[in-house]
């Protein structure tokens, strides 16, 4: 019996971009199948929005009006006619060299292949890796993780909490936490002294998108009023036996040590490119956003004909812009399937809004630059590859040996060979190698990503049945 399923378009990721793309396609008569590894739609930004709206409506006041607005996209998905498979992880996209496009998934503990005419990757964003000594201790988590726990289970951190890094999400979360009745002990702001350019960028952003800017600056002001902030923090270290118990850092030429129970870190978000890279889509290094982004033509067309990318996965644009992008990519894909020229797409549908979002994004990038020391950990003892526990010193050593790229580095140190497949170390490794050899990130490149992109067991793969088996029986 064949396990195959056929559809016109597979969309991966049920955040605002993915939900909108799938909805839009289904509404125009295209068979769309939306896959997501979570058990409910919303992605990260609108994580558990249905559940919170239903069962914990009081939490909506804590989480804010922007979060609440996520219900719109979810409702649209449910009424669009798009097929939706939650609890489904994608471990493979068949190679371009193979005759048929297929997506390998694991669902209910079983592996199966889905044939499709086109794939849209809406895999969203992930937090930028933040390596520093002690970051692997239990008790150190990302701000996004803490926010997910608040959204999905109404959990609030206990004890003494420090929050380190920078970025709008950091301030949003802390303002939500304050509303939920808990204040962190201290905020460790890792940004350098604001340059004139940075200050000008804030002014520019205020004129371009005053609503978003006031909202963001509002969180910041409110938070900084209530909680002690240490500025220009560097040499952050976490300490403890078996779990976090203290942190130390420098701020304005002074040394500090604090006893803490939880350290939340955040240094901006970057596109989650793992599936796109595994599918062989070309990527380039975006110097401004300091991350890998897929090469895109039109609205979301990658270098591989049957693969598109949408939303933050194509370059960080935020939730609202992701919805617009979803509509544009859906149009482009639908036209493509019909063999038509998409015409003038891209964000031409809403050019002014798109420009506004882009400009705001540029300003935010200026205002919240990634911390130098997270990008290039100064201490050799810092674990860079969490899975294989490979240190910055080890990477520097193999760079000196002649490794000019992360794949050779992987071969020599095992860095990137663990289950996360380099999600938490890839950018750092490339940066360390680039720095050693005086090369650009583009010249150094990124890990070659192979399947499985999400976990699959030997037995699950062995039991996989494909169309080919049906014909040979």
């Amino acid at each position: 019996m064949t396990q195959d399923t056929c559809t016109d378009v597979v969309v991966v990721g049920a955040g605002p971009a993915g939900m909108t793309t799938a909805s839009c396609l289904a509404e125009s008569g295209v068979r769309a199948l939306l896959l997501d590894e979570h058990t409910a739609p919303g992605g990260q930004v609108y994580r558990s929005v249905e559940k919170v709206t239903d069962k914990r409506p009081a939490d909506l006041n804590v989480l804010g009006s922007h979060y609440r607005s996520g219900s719109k996209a979810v409702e649209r998905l449910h009424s669009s006619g798009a097929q939706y498979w939650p609890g489904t992880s994608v471990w493979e996209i068949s190679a371009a060299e193979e005759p048929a496009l297929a997506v390998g998934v694991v669902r209910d503990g079983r592996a199966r292949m889905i044939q499709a005419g086109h794939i849209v990757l809406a895999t969203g964003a992930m937090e930028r890796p933040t390596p520093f000594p002690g970051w692997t201790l239990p008790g150190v988590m990302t701000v996004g993780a803490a926010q997910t726990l608040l959204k999905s289970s109404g959990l609030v951190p206990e004890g003494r909490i420090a929050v380190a890094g920078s970025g709008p999400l950091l301030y949003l979360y802390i303002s939500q936490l304050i509303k939920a009745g808990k204040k962190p002990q201290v905020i460790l702001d890792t940004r350098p002294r604001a340059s004139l350019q940075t200050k000008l960028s804030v002014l520019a952003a205020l004129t371009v998108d005053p609503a978003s800017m006031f909202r963001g600056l509002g969180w910041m002001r409110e938070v900084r009023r209530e909680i002690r902030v240490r500025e220009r923090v560097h040499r952050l270290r976490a300490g403890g036996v078996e779990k976090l118990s203290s942190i130390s850092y420098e701020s304005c030429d002074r040394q500090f040590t604090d006893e803490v129970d939880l350290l939340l870190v955040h240094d901006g978000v970057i596109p989650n490119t793992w599936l796109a890279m595994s599918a062989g889509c070309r990527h380039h290094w975006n110097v401004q956003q300091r991350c890998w982004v897929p090469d895109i033509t039109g609205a979301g067309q990658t270098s591989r004909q049957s693969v598109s990318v949408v939303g933050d996965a194509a370059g960080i644009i935020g939730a609202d812009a992701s919805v617009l992008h979803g509509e544009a990519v859906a149009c482009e894909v639908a036209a493509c399937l019909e063999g038509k020229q998409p015409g003038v797409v891209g964000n031409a549908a809403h050019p002014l809004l798109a420009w506004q979002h882009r400009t705001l994004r540029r300003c935010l990038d200026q205002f919240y630059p990634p911390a130098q020391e997270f990008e290039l950990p100064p201490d050799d003892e810092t674990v860079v590859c969490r899975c294989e526990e490979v240190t910055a010193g080890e990477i520097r050593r193999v760079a000196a040996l002649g490794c000019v790229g992360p794949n050779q580095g992987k071969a020599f140190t095992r860095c990137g060979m663990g289950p996360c497949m380099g999600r938490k170390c890839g950018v750092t490794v490339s940066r360390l190698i680039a720095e050693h050899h005086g090369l650009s990130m583009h010249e150094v490149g990124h890990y070659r990503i192979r399947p499985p992109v999400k976990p699959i067991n030997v037995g699950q793969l062995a039991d996989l049945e494909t169309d080919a088996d049906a014909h040979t029986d």
Partner: protein
Amino acid sequence: MYRRRDPISDSIIIWFCDRRIEAAADDSVAAALLAASISCFGRTAVSGAPRAPFCMIGNCFDCLVEIDGETNLQACLVTVREGMRIRPHPGNGFGDDGEKGEA
């Protein structure tokens, strides 16, 4: 590390090793364990260092656990079920209490 804002309205019982834990019916396994102050979900393959969830969105793989005999599940992506038995992921050979155990 974490506490619930509201009391559990639809509680179920799950197990982490020998520990009986009360969870909300729609918790992720990771959330349920963190709310029960579990700070070590498993140990690393290389040095046996303790690990707990880091990212909660399925990217760090520090929350890998074994559930009802099935291995390699990310606790942040799986919803709890009544009677669920969770153990640290056995693959690396470091057992429940951090000792290298027999297969």
